[in-house]
């Protein structure tokens, strides 16, 4: 078995892994390694051929592959090692990685610090428990995206899409452009889950109906999907009798959520947050296991890759500091809690001696509110909604004013606060 020793090992070569590795090298880690299971770097960006990436970071609207290429080009100028076609099988809490590829067989990699950057997976039909037959023609939207954009297969001609998240909307446009008939996008929530821009450019441009407060309640077809039955739902998401409607289709795409891919993290004993499904981390993006860091969609599902890159750079830099023994344990730690109308906050625990970037999502859409961070900072927001991640950085000067051992993040209505704010 080939044995290697590195300063920082990054698991996953998508946008998070690329940015983390580059930052780790820049921070002074001499030996940085990226382990990637695909035959090329870039991760999911390579199949996201639509544009709109990089507005914050590059002030340009890039396609997914273009965004990835910028990092890959930068990587080529460094001595960062990349193992492609290599699958990590196990990570231990002592930061030993067991991986395998067809050139070298088993590999044992000992790392002074590890960055988890494995991304996420799509929720499947099984997770939704849609009743009915099990014919061919039901795909997760991301799988269909790969077939269409990389492999060159069109999954079907008459399509229904369940879920109005951005991937579902993007695929509605993509399938329409390629000549398929997109019959409907069906969304259980009372509003579209994706960006308004995508509702306009992916649905309205192609006259695709969006059925809100509705879901697929039955699948029809023996060998191949023939139709789905959709129905409206009540406030408890239960189908309302009498609202059923049959839509003929040969393809159903599911865009119903992403789940951080934490098999390896769990195996190492990393503590997970039941809400994000990603590791619990501190302000240095270190997990519950010393020397193991996490960033990108394996940590929590992001909506903008720009935020992934930024977060990953911090994880990479802190991982390098840890490897170089320059990351001292803080003297005081504070728990971060999700308060009113906040679904989750990352990081879950912070020290007060460094700037901390907080990422959070709300539970419900709300207008004219303040985002309140432990009373230390209150930011006016015209609009908050679950599909748009909020982020804000607090400086050590502000953080040091915190009393007690908990920082609660909450949404406060502007009316409630009144003129005193």
């Amino acid at each position, binding site marked *: 078995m080939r044995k290697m020793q590195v300063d920082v090992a990054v698991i996953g070569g998508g946008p998070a892994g690329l940015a983390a590795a580059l930052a780790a090298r820049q921070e002074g880690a001499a030996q940085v390694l990226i382990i990637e299971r695909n035959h*090329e770097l870039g991760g999911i960006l390579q199949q996201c*051929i639509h544009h709109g990436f990089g507005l914050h970071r590059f002030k340009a609207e890039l396609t997914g*592959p273009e965004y990835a290429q910028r990092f890959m080009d930068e990587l080529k100028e460094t001595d960062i090692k990349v193992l492609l076609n290599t699958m990590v099988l196990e990570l231990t809490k002592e930061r030993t990685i067991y991986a395998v590829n067809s050139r070298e067989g088993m590999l044992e990699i000992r790392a002074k610090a590890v960055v988890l950057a494995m991304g996420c997976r799509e929720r499947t039909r099984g997770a939704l428990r849609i009743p009915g037959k099990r014919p061919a023609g039901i795909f997760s939207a991301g799988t269909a995206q790969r077939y269409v954009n*990389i*492999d*060159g297969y069109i999954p079907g001609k008459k399509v229904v899409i369940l879920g109005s998240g951005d991937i579902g909307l993007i695929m509605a446009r993509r399938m329409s*452009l390629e000549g398929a008939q997109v019959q409907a996008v069906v969304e259980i929530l009372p509003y579209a889950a994706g960006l308004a821009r995508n509702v306009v*450019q992916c649905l309205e441009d192609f006259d695709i109906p969006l059925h809100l407060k509705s879901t697929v309640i039955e699948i029809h077809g023996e060998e191949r999907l023939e139709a789905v039955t959709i129905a409206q739902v009540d406030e408890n998401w239960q189908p309302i009798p009498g609202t059923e409607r049959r839509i003929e289709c040969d393809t159903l795409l599911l865009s119903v959520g992403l789940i951080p891919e934490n098999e390896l993290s769990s195996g190492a004993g990393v503590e997970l947050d039941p809400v994000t499904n990603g590791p619990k981390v501190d302000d240095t993006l270190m997990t519950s296991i010393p020397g193991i860091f996490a960033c990108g969609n394996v940590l929590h599902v992001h909506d903008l890759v720009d935020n992934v890159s930024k977060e990953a750079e911090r994880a990479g830099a802190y991982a390098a500091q840890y490897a170089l023994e320059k990351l001292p344990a803080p003297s005081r730690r504070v728990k971060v809690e999700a308060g009113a109308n906040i679904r989750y906050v990352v990081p879950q625990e912070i020290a007060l001696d460094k700037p901390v970037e907080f990422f959070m999502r709300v539970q419900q859409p709300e207008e004219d509110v303040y985002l309140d961070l432990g009373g230390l900072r209150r930011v006016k927001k*015209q*609009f908050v909604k679950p599909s748009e991640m909020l982020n804000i950085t607090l400086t050590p000067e502000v953080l040091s004013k915190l009393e007690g051992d908990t920082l609660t993040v909450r949404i406060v209505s502007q009316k409630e606060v009144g003129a005193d704010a």
Partner: protein
Amino acid sequence: MRKTITCTVCPLSCQVVLELGPRGEILSLTGNRCARGKSYATKEHTAPERTLTTTVKIRGGVHPLLPVRTDRPIPKDKLREAMRATAELEVEAPVKMGDVLVENFLGLGVRLIASRSLEQVQ
């Protein structure tokens, strides 16, 4: 006549309401919360444009398809024609990101460019 346009400039997604005259000319424009919203809605009403992103066939590449895009937005009503044109196109690997595949695409004064590099299969 009245027409509502969802502004897509920022996440606020203002509903911009246009009062239109008999020839479609804009008489008034309300509901936008900023100047960018006004210019977006005006443009969207008079001459809507979209950037086309799609794929073309590639011979000898590590993948069978090459992602491409127009280097600038094209009129929205040209999207179908543009898709038919890209379906006919086939290029040869290797290709570098930014390579111009078609100059003056559809006579629209835009270029069709490769949106990634794709190496030759070994």
